[in-house]
């Protein structure tokens, strides 16, 4: 359970200007605790990765930041506003400053690519249709899909859908863009394109990127700062270089992708022999 504080000067200064601060967060689903006192600081304008094994609540954390879920206790401060204490109307206002790339893309299936990207602009601005067209084409150009503007979501490949969803997430130039498992299920080319895009867009647009992922190499290659979550807690945090030097078994297992270790290969179960001998008692 080694928590490494940033040692370098650049890492320390990174955490001075914080856009999202999670303080002593606890959250449970039913009787199952997901977070047990989590503290996370997301530096402004950087790419921050939240990593950890499957089922540790990484996506839940994004939903908590976006106010789609409310914590049991603790606080989540986004640009000075405490998200859990915001009313429904204020939540929708603060979400205008956030963009989110969902794992499934979550494109609106009754709209084509162009309208999907134009949708947030039409809803939140009074811009003339000509200007909206130009903005949408610029966003599509940024993700390399300008030629696909009139396709329906059902006509897109998985990688293309993810890029269209990315274009939609940045259509209002949000201050924070959250990526939920952006590399999952992508072929190596699409993955490379997405890695490149996330980094490039972060630099070009200056927004803060929060990536939730368990794809180690891709995430380490673009993240400025990383939080590693397991067992409902932050077990390590630091820059990618700092993370590679941590000796903790739990961290090593995750970073090196070892099949067994502190995170066991087997799900909790009764003794195998005993279960085999008691046929018919339970499955």
């Amino acid at each position, binding site marked *: 359970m080694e928590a490494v504080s940033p040692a370098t000067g650049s890492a320390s200064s990174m955490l001075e200007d914080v856009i999202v601060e999670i303080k002593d967060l606890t959250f449970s689903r039913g009787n199952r605790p997901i977070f047990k006192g989590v503290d996370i600081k997301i530096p402004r304008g950087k790419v921050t990765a939240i990593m950890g094994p499957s089922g540790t609540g990484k996506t839940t954390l994004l*939903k908590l930041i*976006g106010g*789609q879920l409310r914590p049991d206790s603790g606080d989540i401060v986004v640009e000075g506003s405490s998200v859990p204490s915001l009313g*429904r109307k204020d939540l*929708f*206002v603060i*979400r*205008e400053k*956030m*963009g*989110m790339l*969902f*794992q*499934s893309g*979550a*494109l*609106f*299936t009754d709209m084509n690519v162009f309208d999907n990207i134009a*949708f*947030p602009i039409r*809803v*939140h601005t009074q811009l003339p249709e000509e200007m909206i067209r130009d903005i949408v084409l610029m966003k599509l150009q940024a993700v390399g899909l300008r030629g696909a503007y009139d396709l329906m979501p059902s006509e897109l490949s998985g990688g293309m859908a993810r890029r269209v969803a990315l274009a*939609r997430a940045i259509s209002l130039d949000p201050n924070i863009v959250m990526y939920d498992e952006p590399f999952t299920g992508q072929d190596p080319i699409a993955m490379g394109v997405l890695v490149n895009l996330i980094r490039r867009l972060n630099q070009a647009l200056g927004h803060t990127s929060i990536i939730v992922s368990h794809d180690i190499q891709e995430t380490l290659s673009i993240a400025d700062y990383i939080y590693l979550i397991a067992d409902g807690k932050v077990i390590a945090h630091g820059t990618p270089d700092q993370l590679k030097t941590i000796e903790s078994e739990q961290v090593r297992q995750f970073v090196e992708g070892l099949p067994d270790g502190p995170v066991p290969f087997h799900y909790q179960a009764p003794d195998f022999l005993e279960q085999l001998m008691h046929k018919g008692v339970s499955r």
Partner: protein
Amino acid sequence: MIDFMQKLGHRTLSKLAAFGRSGQILFQSVVAKPAPVMMFPLLIKQIYFVGVLSLIIIVVSGLFIGMVLGLQGYTILADYGSEEAVGQMVALSLVRELAPVVTALLFAGRAGSALTAEIGLMKATEQLASLEMIGVDPLRRIIAPRLYAGFICMPLLTMIFAVVGVWGAALVAVDWLGIYSGSYWVNMQQSVDFMSDVVNGLIKAVVFGFVVTWIAVYQGYDCVPTSEGISQATTRTVVYSSLAVLGLDFILTALMFGDL
């Protein structure tokens, strides 16, 4: 015994919580701050999906039910020598009872299940969550237009059902069985009262439209976002809507015609 009581209590509490959630959805999507300008184009689209696309099944069902009523009515009334009253019997049956009830049942099966499946699938594919993160309230954008479309379409479909049913009965009774058309239409005109029959029938249609659409959108919005969850929600929509329509029909009938 304690286990049984515990399960019963748990089920009761979860049903009450679900009822509370459905009320909250209804309030937040329809009552709290309606946005007519934003909603108008969405409403037109939903009226098309919920109403216009239900027309075929409503018209065909209305026609056959009217024809059966004409045939059965003629057979029974002929025994008493009063087959001329078949128009009156058909019109009163349709306007008071059959049109609102059968339309609501068909509406639940066609439009209600489609609404639940559509909203459930939007939830499963994270489209509702995506709307929330874009800063758009899905209750106002997705749920409200569908609710209003249901409220508007049900009475209209009921009227169409009744008209087609009366015409279907006339086809059988007048054109096929040879009842004098003057008797058919005049008896109907003299016996059907606009306020107590037609308006009461439409009140039923409005109530059924409200209940069926409310159940359908709630089941979709609150479903477990998996293929099994959507399938169960769709089934619940049809079952709950049908039971609610039949139960409410008795209550409304007792209130409207119970003193006769």
